[in-house]
């Protein structure tokens, strides 16, 4: 959209654009700032923006009260585990859909995705009973399986859109040269699909990391991830907003850092690979 704009107008646009951006980012910024305030300054009237006595005591207290590293470990195991398991199940399925499509393939895909729109609560109870029977309540591996299942439609969908972009002729050529199915998938398809698989993994790690409903309902003390860690600070009676901010900051920091460094892949992931 080329248009001639005056310098002044451009400066105005830039300012306005940044203002919108900062407004969107503000709640996170405010949370991070508050985590360095004392409880008194956190609720002071009028609010203090930058000029307060920076302190780390909230972090110390939060760490003392609940073992951050244990929650973090659980989060990492659950998010990464469920994603990798999902990839193992989804790659073959997406391969079938992308390279051996039938008339119904796209409908099946849409149907799978549409189940994401059903409320999770509806299946909580059957899963809960199953978990009691199998002894999987408050167990990290049980959660890995459930979160894998929840995100599976999205993983299959994303991989499918990435695989579809790989020209079928290349696979055809490999087949002509006598490659077996295993070789075809392992040596031809996989290397070409790596960027797509990488963004799929990134997005799904984030989705699993943030999943609150299942993690809160199926875990207690042992397997609880960071979502449970923050939720435990939510008692509004206590008015411990600085500590709540510190806990929130600790919980979202890994994902913010990871997001910052993998933005490009993540944007493709967030758009489900359908928008370039």
């Amino acid at each position, binding site marked *: *959209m080329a248009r001639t704009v005056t310098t002044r107008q*451009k400066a105005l646009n*830039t300012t*306005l*654009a*940044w203002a*919108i*951006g900062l407004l*969107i*980012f503000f*709640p996170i910024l405010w949370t991070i700032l508050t985590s360095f305030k004392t409880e008194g300054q956190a*609720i002071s009237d*009028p*609010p203090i923006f930058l000029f307060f006595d920076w302190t780390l005591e909230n972090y110390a207290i939060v760490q003392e009260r609940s073992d951050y590293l244990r929650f973090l470990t659980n989060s990492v195991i659950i998010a990464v585990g469920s994603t990798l398991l999902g990839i193992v*199940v989804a790659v*073959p*399925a997406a391969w*079938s859909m992308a390279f*051996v499509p039938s008339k119904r393939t*796209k409908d099946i895909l*849409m149907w799978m*995705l*549409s189940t*994401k*729109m*059903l*409320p*999770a*609560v*509806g*299946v*909580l*109870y*059957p899963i809960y009973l199953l978990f009691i029977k199998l002894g999987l309540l408050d167990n990290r591996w049980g959660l890995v399986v459930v979160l*894998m*299942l*929840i995100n*599976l439609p999205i993983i299959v969908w994303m991989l499918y859109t990435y695989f579809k972009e790989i020209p079928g002729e290349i696979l055809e050529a490999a087949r002509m040269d006598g490659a077996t*199915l295993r070789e075809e998938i392992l040596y031809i398809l996989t290397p070409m699909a790596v960027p797509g698989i990488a963004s799929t993994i990134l997005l799904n790690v984030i989705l699993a990391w*943030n999943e*609150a*409903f299942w993690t809160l*309902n199926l875990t207690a003390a042992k397997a609880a991830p960071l*979502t449970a860690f*923050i939720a435990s600070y*939510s008692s*509004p009676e206590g008015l411990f*907003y600085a500590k*709540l901010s510190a806990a*929130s900051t600790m*919980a979202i920091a890994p*994902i*913010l850092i990871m*997001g*910052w460094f993998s*933005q490009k892949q993540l944007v493709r992931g967030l*758009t489900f690979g*359908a*928008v*370039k």
Partner: protein
Amino acid sequence: MSASTDSLNSRRRPRAFAPWLFLAPGMAMFLFYVIIPIFQSLWVSFYDWDGLSDAKWIGIANYLELLDDDAFYTSLKNNIIWLVLYMLSVPAGLMIALFLNQTVRGIRIYKSLFFFPFVISQVVVGLIFSWFYAPGFGLLYKLIELVTGQGVAILADENLVTYGIIAAGLWPQIAYCMILYLTGLNAVASDQIEAARLDGAKGWRMLWYVVIPQLRPATFIAIVVTVIGALRSFDLVSIMTSGGPFGSSRVLSYFMYEQALSEYGYRMGYGAAIAVVLFAIMIIFISGFIWKMWRDEKGVR
């Protein structure tokens, strides 16, 4: 002759069979997690059952009770409000994206600002906003006080609470739609824009007839994800208000949770009936709508 055909067939066979074999694990998981529980819920909805003792068949009594339950109508109404207001994030995201789709200094860092709200957990979103709404010192409370002269405790007000929670949910959702459209705008063909301009199209007409049709894939994803987001309302409701005050911010999924699984009730059958109604609504309205869009989308390609 026949031997060579045979060997050809046996070499072919794994390839013909492979797609089905590859689909099997995914489909099996899917059956196990989605299809079976749905039928289980349907089955349980005809029983009176506390989850422990023997279930008693009571036919459609659960559904009849539901028709008479005020809480059901409140939840249903809130679900509709959620869905309608959430949809606003699609045009809102588009507007912001259109405005930002120009050379702004430091666009890369700038984009990330939009990107962060979407990657943080709904639990954090809910907590941050409850805190912003907190009477006395919450930032939004202060802002309202400044503008209207009187502070309002939004989360304690029966008529405002649902809107307050939705506002919290819209924050990451608008940011997401905006990223989606900004990415989509990169792919809009500039020669078509130029051609349309030469033909005298500008402003709204340009947007409506030239730009938006080209953003169709982005719009499709935006709507799908927004609908999913609106139905995830459970997380925010449970964290911000637990359905209160006086149940006024309940949505159907939360209502079901309260009846069947929370510490207040163990009415599995009743809960299951709510779930079935919710499923039915979803399948009829939303799936139907998205299905149609999907068909159109396929046709375009």
